[in-house]
């Protein structure tokens, strides 16, 4: 392998600085006092766990344990200020004077406050107070949410808890993934998913991590609704989640950060005896949806039967005199009790963790087991017939969808000295998920149930019967290790340094098996799965990250402070995979070995990036904070002709309420903030390269191997560049019982990478990546938090958050014709990326007979913009009502999304392709429904008429009731704490959408493409969870 040196002076100077700073000798100092105490909730007196106690002037921070206790040992004699911070509480401060050999005890009682600017958040340069940062950062108290809300996967922790963050769950099938968009979509052709860090380690976060062919669309996305790797993370291991929303805030995270950054911090131990927490969760997963009826126009006359009209005698056919509707019948096997392939699945999760430690070492160790059966079940009559024929039904055929996860985590912090500690964060997960065909396929229960043209007298109304559909086995086994070591060094009171080395690796095995003779005869004929087929694809996907940083704080004068930070990162993404498959298996065989035809191939993709930054923050009287920074990046995927890139950042934060002139009684906190920053997104690994691919051939009866043009490449390829300006305010009113956060952002992506079609006549690849377009996202975010009632016995917290996003392609690029996405979507200048375009349908019941015939329907001449495919408005209302001094807590979350359209392709398909929709046959159907059905049969209508509908909805997403048992009950079980939570998810929907569920997407986690087509709708969860603390 050739080695190429890259010399980037600009990048490496900060790296050098960081290294040199970290290499400074430690200053040993005599420190022998102790500061200790307890932190409690002022309202109920309960100890507060996970509060951060900061010993000013030392860089020492301790976290309270479950009893609310903290201890600083070996503190040098002197006067200190102790500041206690916790999410959801007003900070508390006390002075301590430490003398040699003595212990100072300081207890704190904290009062609740919805949002606090003193809260410490993690940034690219280290930990900082929110106040110092000129941009908004959302912090989610994940530990609390996971315990009290119906959280079945990581994405649930985020959903509805951060303004401007959209969690788009594409399907209700257990194990399927999620799209997450922060402040809209920045990129036309690259991923719009945010970056994820766990304890400082960059994570592999593929939003659809699968090669299983379980639906979906086309060669580019054969996998359908695969799992999102981010859901590998056990929500119960997480302490908090911080969401950094855009380039203005994420500049220093470097390349790929333009979509925002999600920082996950797992739980860590605190000094003290071992403290155990156990939980047990049990629940049900059920499908509560109603599916559209399949219609048929019967013509039972002899002519009708002979001419093939029995079942297909449409309104139009009758008008044309081709048949006589003797009756119109309807049926839906997905709705009928006897034929429904659904039954509530059992969800179980058990976990335990222990934390504690001594002065030198603290630890947090956890383990969890999760087992969930999806809502699908073989109908009883089919199970009976299989049992009669074969004696038994395999479990995977009876319950074809489910997942099983086992995870362990060990976080250890070693305090090597007063100035140096090392934190190890190690997590391992093994999971097995059994999928069901999920989108765009007759092999889905949705597709087979809704696309059937038959009446219940054939196949009980199914296209393929569930017994055949469920005989297919599609599994993914994943083993994931995420490990990181972070060294924190505080050689002096003014200097901190850190170094993190992380490795995240997923070993994945995707197996799909069609047992011979047992599955649906699809595709029919010699390629049928029924002849037996199996694929076995194995992948290893890894991310290596190295992060070095150092910060120095100086007080330049009594009024002016300075914080200087430098750092650098290296990332390596590596994906290696091998595919093997065989078709034509002997009956009873479960292996590719011996298959009639076999195929194999492998793939390797690698990308590397390196970057560094320098940041300077200046504070004035601890009220005004000004920050400026530069980030330098280079990446292996840039074109030959492009060098490294530089991203600037600047922000200001002004706590105006602390100014002497500020006197507004009700407004006790007011902060204005503004931030500007740029970030980027790297091209794909080989996007810049011109290359050929190997292809197999045959000549003269002999196999050959050849090469075929693969990609045109682009040697000028560079990262796309997003710059964002955000401005906003944070206000605390009525002694911080009410807080308001308002933000306006304007994000412009320049040089956006466009995978533009190239002229096919070049005989090259389909497309080429070019830096051409400009995309703008702008919008408002608002968060209102209020403690509506604040009494010792009752407290009611409300949080209303919402955002708007206006996405627009300002310029797709000179000479670039509109880019088509999905079924009816386009990227076109002047319109939202991936917006829906289709001709409009007009109709007029000219003869007034209440029937729309095809002559009464017309299409506009061309496709026109119809609306956004992604919600442009979202809002969430979270409520927590705590009564009996917090012993009983009722939580709800309402989730709204709107301002977009949903493509009801299923109904279009049912009208045009399989011809079983109501509008075709039922003369009492609304005229608009008849007109849409008819329009598909106008010339070109089958491919252009889109059934687009407003997609707004309000869902009662979460409902939970938590009982904190009296202490004596807990003590009866020798426990310190006992709580029970009953919770439900996806309980109620209000929408105008006529399809089953406006949330689903048959394109799964595709970047833009969106359609409701034979996907499993969202399912309902009910869970009961018991938490025990020892």
């Amino acid at each position, binding site marked *: 392998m050739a080695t190429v040196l890259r010399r980037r002076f600009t990048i490496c100077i900060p790296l050098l600085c960081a290294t040199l700073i970290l290499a400074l000798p430690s200053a040993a100092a005599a420190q022998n006092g102790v500061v200790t105490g307890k932190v409690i909730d002022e309202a109920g007196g309960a100890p507060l766990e996970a509060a951060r106690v900061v010993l000013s002037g030392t860089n020492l921070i301790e976290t309270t344990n479950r009893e609310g206790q903290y201890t600083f040992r070996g503190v040098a004699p002197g006067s200190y200020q102790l500041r206690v911070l916790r999410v959801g509480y007003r900070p508390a401060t006390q002075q301590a004077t430490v003398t040699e050999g003595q212990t100072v005890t300081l207890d704190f009682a904290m009062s609740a406050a919805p949002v606090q600017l003193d809260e410490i958040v993690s940034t690219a340069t280290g930990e900082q107070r929110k106040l110092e940062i000129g941009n908004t950062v959302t912090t989610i108290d994940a530990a609390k949410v996971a315990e009290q809300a119906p959280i079945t996967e990581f994405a649930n922790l985020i959903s509805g808890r951060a303004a401007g963050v959209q969690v788009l769950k594409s399907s209700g099938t257990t194990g399927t993934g999620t799209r997450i968009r922060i402040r809209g979509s920045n990129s036309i052709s690259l991923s719009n998913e945010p970056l994820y860090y766990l304890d400082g380690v960059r994570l592999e976060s593929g939003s659809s991590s699968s090669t299983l062919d379980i639906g979906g669309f086309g060669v580019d996305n054969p996998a359908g609704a695969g799992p999102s790797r981010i859901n590998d993370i056990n929500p119960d291991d997480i302490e908090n989640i911080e969401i950094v929303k855009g380039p203005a805030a994420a500049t220093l995270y470097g390349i790929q950060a333009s979509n925002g950054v999600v920082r996950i911090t797992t739980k860590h131990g605190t000094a003290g005896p071992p403290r155990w927490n156990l939980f047990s969760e049990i629940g049900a997963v059920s499908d509560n949806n109603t599916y559209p009826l399949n219609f048929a126009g019967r013509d039972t006359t002899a002519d009708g039967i002979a001419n093939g009209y029995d079942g297909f005698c449409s309104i139009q056919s009758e008008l044309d005199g081709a048949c006589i509707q003797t009756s119109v019948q309807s049926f839906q096997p997905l709705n009928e009790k006897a034929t429904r392939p659904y039954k509530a699945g059992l969800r179980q999760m058990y976990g335990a963790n222990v934390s504690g430690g001594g002065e030198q070492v603290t630890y947090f160790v956890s383990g969890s087991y999760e087992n969930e059966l999806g809502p699908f079940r073989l109908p009883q009559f089919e199970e009976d017939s299989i049992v009669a024929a074969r004696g038994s039904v395999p479990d995977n055929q009876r319950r074809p969808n489910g997942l099983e996860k086992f995870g362990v985590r060990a976080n250890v912090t070693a305090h090597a000295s007063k100035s140096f500690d090392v934190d190890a964060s190690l997590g391992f997960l093994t999971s097995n998920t059994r999928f069901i065909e999920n989108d765009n396929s007759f092999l889905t229960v949705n597709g087979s149930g809704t696309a059937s043209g038959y009446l219940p007298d054939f196949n009980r109304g199914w296209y393929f019967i569930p017994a055949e559909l469920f005989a297919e086995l599609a599994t993914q086994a994943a083993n994931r290790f995420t490990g990181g070591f972070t060294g924190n060094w505080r050689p002096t009171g003014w200097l901190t340094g850190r170094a993190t080395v992380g490795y995240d690796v997923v070993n994945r095995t995707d197996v799909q098996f069609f047992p011979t003779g047992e599955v649906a005869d699809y595709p029919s004929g010699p390629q049928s799965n029924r002849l037996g087929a199996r694929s076995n694809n194995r992948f290893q996907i890894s991310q290596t990250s190295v992060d070095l940083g150092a910060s120095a704080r100086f007080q330049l004068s009594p009024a002016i402070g300075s914080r200087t930070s430098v750092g650098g990162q290296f990332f390596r993404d590596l994906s290696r995979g091998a595919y093997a498959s065989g078709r034509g298996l002997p009956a009873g065989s479960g292996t590719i070995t011996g298959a009639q035809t076999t195929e194999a191939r492998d793939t390797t993709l690698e990308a590397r990036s390196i970057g560094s930054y320098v940041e300077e923050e200046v504070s004035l009287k601890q009220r005004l904070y000004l920050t400026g920074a530069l980030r330098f990046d280079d990446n292996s995927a840039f074109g030959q002709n492009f060098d490294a890139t530089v991203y600037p950042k600047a922000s200001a934060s002004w706590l105006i309420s602390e100014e002497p002139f500020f006197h507004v009684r009700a407004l006790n906190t007011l902060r204005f903030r503004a931030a500007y920053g740029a970030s980027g997104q790297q091209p794909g690994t080989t996007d810049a390269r011109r290359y050929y691919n190997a292809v*197999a051939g045959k000549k003269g009866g002999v196999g050959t191997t050849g090469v075929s043009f693969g990609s045109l490449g682009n040697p000028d390829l560079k990262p796309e560049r997003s710059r964002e300006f955000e401005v906003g305010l944070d206000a605390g009113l009525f002694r911080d019982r009410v807080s308001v956060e308002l933000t306006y952002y304007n994000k412009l992506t320049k040089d956006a990478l466009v995978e533009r079609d190239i002229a096919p006549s070049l005989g090259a690849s389909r497309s080429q990546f070019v830096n051409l377009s400009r995309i703008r996202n702008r919008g408002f975010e608002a968060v209102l938090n209020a403690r509506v009632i604040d009494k010792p016995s009752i407290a009611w917290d409300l949080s209303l958050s919402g955002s708007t996003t206006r996405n627009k392609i300002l310029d797709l690029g000179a000479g670039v014709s509109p880019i088509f996405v999905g079924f009816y979507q386009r990227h076109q200048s002047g319109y939202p990326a991936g917006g829906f375009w289709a001709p409009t349908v007009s109709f007029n019941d000219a003869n007034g007979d209440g029937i729309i015939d095809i002559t009464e329907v017309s299409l506009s001449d061309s496709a026109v913009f119809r609306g956004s495919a992604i919600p442009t408005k979202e809002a969430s209302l979270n409520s927590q009502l705590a009564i009996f001094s917090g012993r009983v807590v009722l939580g709800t979350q309402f989730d709204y999304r709107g301002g977009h359209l949903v493509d009801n392709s299923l109904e279009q398909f049912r009208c045009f392709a399989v011809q079983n929709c109501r509008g075709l046959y039922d003369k009492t159907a609304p005229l608009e429904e008849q007109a849409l059905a008819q329009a598909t049969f106008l010339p070109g209508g089958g491919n*252009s008429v889109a059934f687009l509908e407003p997609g707004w909805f309000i869902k009662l997403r979460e409902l939970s009731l938590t009982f904190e048992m009296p202490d004596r009950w807990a003590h009866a079980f020798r426990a310190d704490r006992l709580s029970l939570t009953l919770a439900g998810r996806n309980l109620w929907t209000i929408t105008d959408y006529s399809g089953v569920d406006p949330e689903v997407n048959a394109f799964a986690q595709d970047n833009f493409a969106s359609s409701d087509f034979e996907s499993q709708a969202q399912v309902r969860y009910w869970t009961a969870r018991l938490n025990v603390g020892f």
Partner: protein
Amino acid sequence: MTILTRSAARHSASAITAALLTAGCGLLDTQQPNIIDPGTLNSPEAAQSLRNGALADFAFVKDGDGTQFTDGLILVAGLLSDEFVHSTTPPSEQEIDQRTTATINPSLSDVYRNLHKARAGAEVAAEALQTYLVDPTATTDIAEMQSIAGFTYVYFGEDFCSGVPFSSVRGDSITFGQPQTTVEMFTTALAKFDSALAQPGLAVDDGSITNLALLGRARALLDLGQYADAASAVAAVPTDFSYDTEHADSPQRLQNAIWSYTNGGLWSVSDAEGGNGLPYLSAEDPRVPADSLDDDGDGFADPGLDLITPQYSLGKYPDASSPVPVADGIEARLIEAEAQLQANNFSGMTTTLNDLRHTAIRPALPNLSSAGNREAAIDQLFSERAFWLYATGHRLGDMRRLIRVYGRDAETVFPTGAYHKNGTYGTDVNLPIPVEEQNNPNARGCLDRNA
């Protein structure tokens, strides 16, 4: 295997920085074994790889993809003509069958792009063979590549509207082509075949590549209306000659997708489609063997995947590895018969056709009676061509010639009236140029949609 290397490194200013750069910044080299650098394709072996790739791409676009993700030219053109009816569900394919193909149709885009890729691949391979082979005069491969390229021009001319541009990539140079009219496409094809026939390497040919080029030449001449020249070009081609695209059971990309589609419930053999189509089923002609199932016992053929269209599977290609003719001796005789038709030698034409019916199939087919007049002779010839050349990519071109050359009205040649899955047939007589070609600054779309 390719190693991605970056631009020349900058010299650093100091030893410390250099050391740091080595340790921290020289880490951007990556291994990419899945791609092949064009710079490595400069040897005789590489030229052979280009040839093999071009042949694979040609078979892929002509006969389709066994994975059923990408429709092939014979399938798509057969759908637009009267050979096949659509028996599955994707609307984009149905609109081709219904003669209403939009320029954004994905099936159209795939076949258009892949046909250009096969063309460009054959042209590049021919040049590479000429450049890198030690003795390019001792191989038929160059002539073969030029012939394959010639056939792609023929396909463009026969199946697509007038106005197809032909662009090229050579090294770092990209040349966008100007639109060619239908006649220009056939003329370009003719030049390709003439170049092939002029290759000195044909001296070592066993006849197969020479015959391939001759048949290509004759086909282009036929499309240009030069019937006598076409007939003389193929006079020496034996009737049992055949040059095929070859297929295999695996990988699926190499499978014969005509077999896969027509036996998998996606495309059905048609019968008098839209009134004007030929009776491929009811004629019960062994040249178009077709079969159906009646598993539900209702007395009707079981439907295809759309559950609407009766499914008749084609038996002409019995399995995934069945070869598909590009050009054969039967076509040579048919070209001669058409020259006789053009010379008003109707009885001679029928004799030629009957000779084929006796010699080219077992058991022999019964004789045709002599066509009494020109129109009957045209019907007879084109029917015979349709049955002999069924599912080989000839029929759409023939239907267009019936309009363009023989003066038939499109609505008496193409399927018309009510479509079997509701709606009506449109008016397409060829495939349009897909919208993606607008990225060629010279492209103007179809110059006309005439036959």
